[in-house]
């Protein structure tokens, strides 16, 4: 294929639901033959961005191109070339696992061998189980199998390992890695730091619909004090919070350091973990 366009390019994407802005002027590029993670907390706009790439949603502003094609206008040309794993569902409740996988395979011209693929994903034992009786992890793995069975050029996987046990997560990571080595571009959303760090060549961190950082995991984690987090030992009275904000403003002006974000909130388990061990919860 002489086509040298990037796997995905998103430029100035804006998506609103009612008066809530889900994606706020997002621009990012995914190079071919990489695993690219879109990392961010729940509600950051990851799924909306992905669904715009998959042609489910029309960009309200900005442009989205996948393999150089417009996912809405050139949907029919694009769809056979991509694989999609939704965050959940996507199968009839009464359909048997293998039956569903074979059905999706039949819609493609050169599908993978479904039996071998199912075995590889640890679905060998539940082939005749109706979808509604599969465990959450089995449903996830079937969803992944459905996304790759048609031998796509790009797979979009939305939170592929959410709810999986560590063993299944490991298997999934190995599979995604093998896909990349075989020439498939993998775009995944995740809110697991570890997943992005272990798996991705390129990470885009988004928050509230905006891109806040991009780079390889090494680039993003290099340098020690790009992030400052302050954890206090009791709830802050309003006056104390205002005082803190004011002193940060002063400090920021004095040293010429811009504050990218500052968040106030109650203590999380992650803070507790950090306090007790001096390590982040996601570091394992």
């Amino acid at each position, binding site marked *: 294929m002489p086509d040298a366009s990037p796997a995905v390019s998103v430029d100035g994407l804006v998506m609103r639901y009612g008066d809530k802005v889900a994606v706020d002027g997002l621009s990012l590029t995914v190079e071919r033959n990489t695993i690219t993670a879109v990392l961010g907390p729940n509600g950051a706009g990851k799924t909306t961005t992905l669904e715009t790439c998959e042609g489910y949603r029309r960009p309200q502003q900005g442009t989205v191109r996948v393999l150089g094609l417009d996912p809405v206008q050139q949907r029919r040309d694009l769809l056979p070339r991509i694989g999609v794993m939704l965050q959940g569902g996507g199968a009839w409740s009464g359909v048997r696992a293998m039956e569903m996988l074979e059905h999706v395979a039949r819609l*493609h*011209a050169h599908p993978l061998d479904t039996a071998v693929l199912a075995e590889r994903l640890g679905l060998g034992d539940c082939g005749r189980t109706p979808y509604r009786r599969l465990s959450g992890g089995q449903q996830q793995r079937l969803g992944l199998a459905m996304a790759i069975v048609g031998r796509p050029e790009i797979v979009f996987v939305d939170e592929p390992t959410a709810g999986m046990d560590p063993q299944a997560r490991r298997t999934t990571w190995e599979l995604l890695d093998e896909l990349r080595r075989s020439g498939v571009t993998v775009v995944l959303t995740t809110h697991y730091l570890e997943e992005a760090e272990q798996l991705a060549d390129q990470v885009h961190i988004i928050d509230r619909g905006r891109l806040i950082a991009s780079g390889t995991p090494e680039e993003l984690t290099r340098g020690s004090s790009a992030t400052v987090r302050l954890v206090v030992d009791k709830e802050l009275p309003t006056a104390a919070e205002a005082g803190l904000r004011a002193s940060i403003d002063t400090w920021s002006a004095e040293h010429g350091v811009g504050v990218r974000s500052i968040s106030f909130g109650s203590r999380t388990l992650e803070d507790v973990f950090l306090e007790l061990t001096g390590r982040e919860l996601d570091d394992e």
Partner: protein
Amino acid sequence: MSELDFAPRPGAAPLHRQVLAQSRMEARLMLRNGEQLLLAVVIPVLVLFGAVTAGEHLNLDLPSSRPLVDIFTPGVIALAVMSTSFTSLAIATGFERRYGVIKRLGSSPLPRSGLLAGKIGALLLVQLLQVFIIGGVGQLLGWTPEPGVLGVGLAILLGTAAFAALGLFVAGALRAEATLAAANLIYLLLMTGGGVVLPLTAYGDARPFLQWLPSAALGEAMRTGFIDGGVAWRDLGVLLVWAVFGTVLTAKTFKWE
């Protein structure tokens, strides 16, 4: 175990193969589901038995001197078409929306037109089976049909088109549970009072109103096709109008997710 070659080799299967796969899949699922099977086969067969045995004790004002089974069997076949194309399709599609099946297929190579064609193919497959079973039971009861291929064929096709369009409208506009309730309720009302199993002549004064219902039009078209081998053009016209009306409604309101 052979190795998997993940190297990209994308491509859609030929459209007719995709549609066929979709039809077979949907027909299989429909026949596997107990409630749907009850609706598709058990109820029509019970209605046929009941009508033929009870009818002899009722003074029905029926148009011809034909045995009751000749009049009721086409009506029950019409009922079966209605139950599959309307009720079963609406319920199945309602839950497909709920479970994200339609969304998932929306990013597969199968185009929406192919999905629709697949659904219609599944309906026709299931209805073929229903005609065989109901026709078989009818023959056991002494049914001697003189079918006209054109009249019966058009009745089944236009009946399927009209009821499928209305079924998709209900499934696309309501939530899955509401679809389940509405599709069953409408089916019951039309079965009992909609001129589908009983000929319109049995309804007396209600006839001028009932004859515009899709259920009565389908029932009359089926009876005409099976009893005299004729073609009920007026009733087929009514079905066509309902099909167009339902399609426009569905196209305006249907949400794929």
